[in-house]
């Protein structure tokens, strides 16, 4: 694979309700930030990929709202409707194709502007499932139950993810919710849908993010050392919840396998220095440990107990605070990738993992993490 790397990144602060800002404002903000970070101008950008979702935005052709904000005039442009990591992957492909030297990828969402239940209810099949009234919370709760029953993972172990990530968020000035919690705090928080408590769930968040990819030649113009794409893979499981073994994530195993093969990773726990995974709910982080091969199947609870994924552990996971601390849906995956870039660059300030040279970013799409995208980046 030819070299393609990230030379610029930008994020807004993640907030519950950005009343004074439109999608346009947020995308402009992160575009300017990413360009400044890269030391490039909008004229250095050869093409643009936007990431947005018509349902979340309440707008058909949701990309129409932002294409001028990200400077796409007189440029090729496309839109991925899916998590930001997928959009980032597509942006990288466009550079690897040889057609473009640089790609700007931007993502936005204002979850505060819509009703989560109805938006996520719409991902269920209109003929067989939607009328039942499921949404992201209740469907994920069923997955959490299946996972816990299959492997004896406890509510306390789920809570540890929430404790870790909310505490990590204290080191991330952009995170929405930073808290000092105990396991008991999580277990005492309001029940949403058994077994998920309020503090097991990510918040409603508004935000935007941007990355700039460049090939080797174009990267020469950038201010900072690029963080190179080492490996990437994506894969989807079956759709109907009852078609799947909800306690396991074979699609993640498949996606990670591809990414690891390209990046030469045989022992992820050893060879990765940091991972930013999509912990939309606490139990998901434990499941994704297993799918990513950080521990054997069923070992997610044991891994969080061991402390290996804490700051200072063998493989810190979500130093940024993860989705549990800020979840602008779709943007969240791009934020995971950006956090990894900052880690590899050594620019992660208080949340820096020392000596970081290889990082993993992960995003999900569809009900109960049906589809996964894994990206390994490094020096």
């Amino acid at each position, binding site marked *: 694979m030819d070299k393609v790397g990230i030379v610029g990144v930008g994020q807004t602060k993640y907030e519950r309700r950005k009343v004074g800002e439109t999608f346009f404002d947020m995308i402009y903000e992160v575009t300017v930030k990413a360009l400044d970070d890269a030391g490039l101008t909008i004229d250095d950008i050869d093409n643009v990929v936007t990431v947005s979702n018509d349902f979340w935005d309440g707008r058909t052709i949701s990309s129409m709202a932002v294409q001028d904000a990200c400077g796409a005039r007189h440029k090729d442009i496309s839109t991925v409707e899916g998590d930001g990591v997928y959009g980032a992957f597509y942006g990288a492909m466009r550079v690897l194709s040889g057609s473009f030297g640089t790609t700007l990828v931007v993502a936005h969402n204002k979850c505060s502007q819509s009703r989560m239940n109805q938006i996520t209810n719409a991902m269920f099949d209109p003929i067989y499932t939607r009328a039942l009234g499921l949404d992201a919370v209740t469907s994920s709760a069923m997955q959490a139950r299946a996972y816990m029953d299959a492997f004896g993972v406890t509510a306390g172990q789920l809570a540890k993810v929430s404790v870790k990530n909310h505490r990590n968020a204290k080191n991330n000035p952009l995170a929405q919710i930073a808290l000092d919690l105990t396991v008991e705090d999580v277990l005492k928080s309001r029940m949403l849908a058994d077994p998920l408590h309020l503090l097991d769930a990510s918040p409603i968040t508004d935000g935007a993010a941007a990355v700039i990819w460049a090939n080797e030649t174009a990267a020469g113009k950038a201010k900072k050392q690029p963080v190179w794409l080492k490996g990437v893979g994506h894969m*989807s499981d079956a759709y109907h919840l009852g078609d799947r073994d909800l306690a396991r994530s074979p699609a993640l195993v498949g996606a990670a396998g591809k990414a690891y093969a390209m990046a030469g990773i045989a022992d992820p726990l050893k060879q990765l220095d940091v991972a930013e995974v999509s912990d939309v709910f606490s139990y998901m982080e434990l499941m994704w440990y297993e799918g990513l091969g950080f521990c054997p199947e069923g070992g997610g609870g044991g891994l969080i107990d061991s402390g290996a994924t804490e700051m200072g552990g063998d493989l810190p996971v979500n130093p940024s605070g993860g989705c549990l601390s800020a979840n602008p849906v779709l943007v969240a995956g791009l934020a995971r990738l950006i956090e990894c870039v900052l880690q590899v660059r050594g620019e992660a300030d208080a949340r820096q993992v020392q000596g970081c040279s290889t990082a993993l970013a992960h995003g999900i799409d569809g009900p109960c993490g049906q589809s996964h995208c894994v990206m390994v980046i490094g020096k």
Partner: protein
Amino acid sequence: MGKRVAIVGTGQTKGSSGRKDVNGQEMINEAVMKALTDAELTRDDIDAVIIGNMDHFEGINYVDTWSVDGSGGYMKPIMKVTTGGTTGTTVAMAAYYHVASGLFDKVLAIGWEKNSESDTTGAIITAFEPIVDRPTFAGAVGGLALMANRYMHEFGATQEDAAYVAVRDRRHALKNPNAHLQIDITIEDVMKSPMIAWPIKYLDMCPRTDAACAVIFASEDYAEKICPRPAWILGIKNRHNFTFLGDCALGTLLSLEDAAEALYPRIGITEPLKQFDVMELYLPTSFAGVQWIEALRLCPKGGGPELVNSGATDMGGQCPINPSGGVLSSNPIGATGLLRVAEGALQIMGRADKRQVPDAKMALVSGFGGCNWSDLMALGAKKPD
């Protein structure tokens, strides 16, 4: 460097006002099966799936994950791309970049729409900016009518001038078994049809259609093994125009002009009418059929009516436009752009049956959508250097 990419198989369902016999996913599967059969491949051979439609027409969120049973995406890489009317061409471009990147060898691009399942205008209105534009604006026809109106004002074109496009495309559709509308009409028929939004009349306007289209893209390492005459992708460009409806001049389709200006030099086109053997263009109204071809430099500004009415763009003419019948004959919105790509590819591959332009070696296909997005793709029989 990137890989060279070709189209090696296509499939489409026959356009219909309402496919009641299948749900959306089953309709997708029909097109996918046809494409796999055309390419003599199986689901196992496919390395990635890319799918597109306009969400609010079917009311399903995360269509890529929903459709895996029909699309073949089970335990495969899947991605959703959506850009409104240009979705079909955007999906094709995404498939191209997937393969050109060198990371995927055989990629399945799917575009589909079941317009019968929703209120098309009700859904399209939601494309427009909610605070300023949406309360006063109505659907796709309104915007297209504004463009037609402006064009007539600037260049003195008449409704009759434009009507020939409708006659031409509908006549072509009679030879396309997959076209939704197959009607033989005259200019008089067009002029007598009811007015929808001045100057666009019923027969000037495209239908709304249920259909799916699937196209298989392959890298240079596989294309010639799979297909005796693959359609190579020579170049791709796209451009867009506005944030608010009133942002851009409407007398010319500026985004298409911009895209053509960017594409032609890259592939050595100086006289498009001469150098292309056939075109499948996204022309949603007859007026677009005279106005937008000027943006492609097929003739000077204001010269569209003369060129079209001369018969140069009819089957048998110098450069036939829309042998398939075009968008005026079938408009399953998420698939419409991909149908242009598929039809252009069929011409190069020599598989266009009764609508084949003899010895077609270079094809130009276009996509269009709100906000005046224009996509262009050039296909050729000769592998690019």
